[in-house]
């Protein structure tokens, strides 16, 4: 660990979800359910801990790689860091402006044009009107979508949407990036562009949390890594050690 200021501090984090045995989210079903007093079919759910007692910290300018198999809690962790869902137990502290790229999008509206979405996202990130306006063109250029500025988002391919999401998140200059397996959808040229950007972030001292299935990316970009399995931290430390732990666990 370096001596830099801690910008992400996660202590004893737990996140519990309720998984209903039957999906029930209507008034009609609730009433129907309440009437079946003596039947075994009454609404019940299982509690599921997506994250359990997760503790780590990330210093300013550091990059953290998060690896683990599907369903191990990686995306849940990023959502908690981004403030989108709240922890059930423990505490999470994130200092600075963060930009999450979760899955395909960053909070776009399918019925608005690419340009309008850029403007809206810019204002979500707290940019002023003029600042947003001046960035629309550079963002479209970085995404390689100059010709599609006035197209509705729903008419763009998933790769194009990802490129736009990445470009807009980059251009709003956040202090922290949370990226969730997003790069896999982009084509090779765009992946190369993103990798250049990651280098730039690191040089500029921005903090990166990268959820990925690519061990190469973890080795190349991350100062430290954690391996999650069933919501628990199996191993934390240097990327090599954590990757070895993850791979050896899979081979057993």
């Amino acid at each position, binding site marked *: 660990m370096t001596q830099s200021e801690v910008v992400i501090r996660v202590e004893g984090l737990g996140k519990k*979800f309720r998984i209903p045995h039957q999906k029930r*989210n*209507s*008034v*009609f079903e*609730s009433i129907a359910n309440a009437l079946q007093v003596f039947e075994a079919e009454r609404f019940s759910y299982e509690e599921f801990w997506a994250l359990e007692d997760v503790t780590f910290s990330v210093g300013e300018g550091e990059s953290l790689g998060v690896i683990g198999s599907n369903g191990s809690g990686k995306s849940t962790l990023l*959502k908690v860091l*981004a*403030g*989108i*869902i*709240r922890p059930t137990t423990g505490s999470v502290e994130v200092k600075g402006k963060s930009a*999450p790229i*979760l*899955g395909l*999008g*960053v*909070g*776009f*509206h*399918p*019925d*608005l044009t690419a340009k*309008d979405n850029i*403007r*809206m*996202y810019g*204002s*979500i990130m*707290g*940019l*002023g*009107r003029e600042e*947003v306006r001046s960035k629309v063109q550079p963002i479209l250029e970085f995404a390689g979508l100059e010709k599609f500025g006035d197209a509705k988002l729903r008419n763009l391919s998933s790769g194009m949407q990802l490129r736009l999401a990445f470009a807009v998140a980059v251009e709003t200059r956040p202090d922290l990036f949370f990226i969730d397996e997003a790069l896999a959808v982009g084509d090779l040229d765009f992946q190369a562009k993103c990798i250049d950007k990651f280098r730039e972030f690191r040089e500029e001292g921005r903090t990166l949390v990268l959820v990925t299935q690519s061990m190469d990316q973890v080795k190349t970009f991350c100062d430290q890594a954690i391996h999650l399995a069933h919501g628990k931290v199996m191993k934390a430390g240097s990327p090599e050690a954590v990757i070895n732990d993850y791979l050896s666990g899979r081979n057993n």
Partner: protein
Amino acid sequence: MLRGYSRYGDLVRMLVVKEFKVRYRNSALGFLWSLLNPLAMMVILTIFYTFVFYSSSIANYPVFVLPALLAWRFFAIGTSSSLDAIAGNSALVTKVYFPRILLVLSGSLANALGSTLEFVALLPLMVVLGLRLTAFSALLPIILVLEFILIFGLSLLLSSVSVFYRDFNQIWEIFLQAGFFLSPIFYSQDLIPSGLLTVYSINPVERIVVATRQVLYYGGPPTGLDFAAIALSAVVFLGLGLLAFRHFDGRFGDLV
């Protein structure tokens, strides 16, 4: 709860514009279409009143009914569209964080803007049809602001509830249908027996419709009681709405 959100001013403006663009399908024609509904209702109700009820005790019925219809639409469209403010914006709720109350606020503001435009667009027509503007007509904006606060408060409640119960819109539709008949929109509240009037006017929209008609159709001042009741219900629902929204806010990300 709204303090410290000043940096989100641009976002609210963007969201209102977004709401508007989506609602009116990006065209000025879309707004003209939205005027068609109250106008058609005015014509239908006037025909009904004149030829089915065969009545003429209300002078200039079109001008009697249109302001009430517009005040009702403000309430009905505002509250029913709020049901989707959180549940229908999953991309904005699950992909990025900002205070979610802004989604409800911007929806209510967009609706208020739409309703204001309806009043502005149709007021000349009312004048042509015989409405006389008086000094009391200037009270209309105050009534509409209070109605906006009531709608916003209710919207906070409704948008929270519909995250948990996705079919709540069906139930709210029934409420609105009842409300349309239980408010003196196409009839005068003089028809209500005086013994029932107290119960009848618990409905805050009833007071709003009466006050709107009073300042526009009758050109007189609304009663102090109407004003006080409207203001009180607006404040009460705003308080309840803020409390409920704050309580449920933490679970929206899990459920949407």
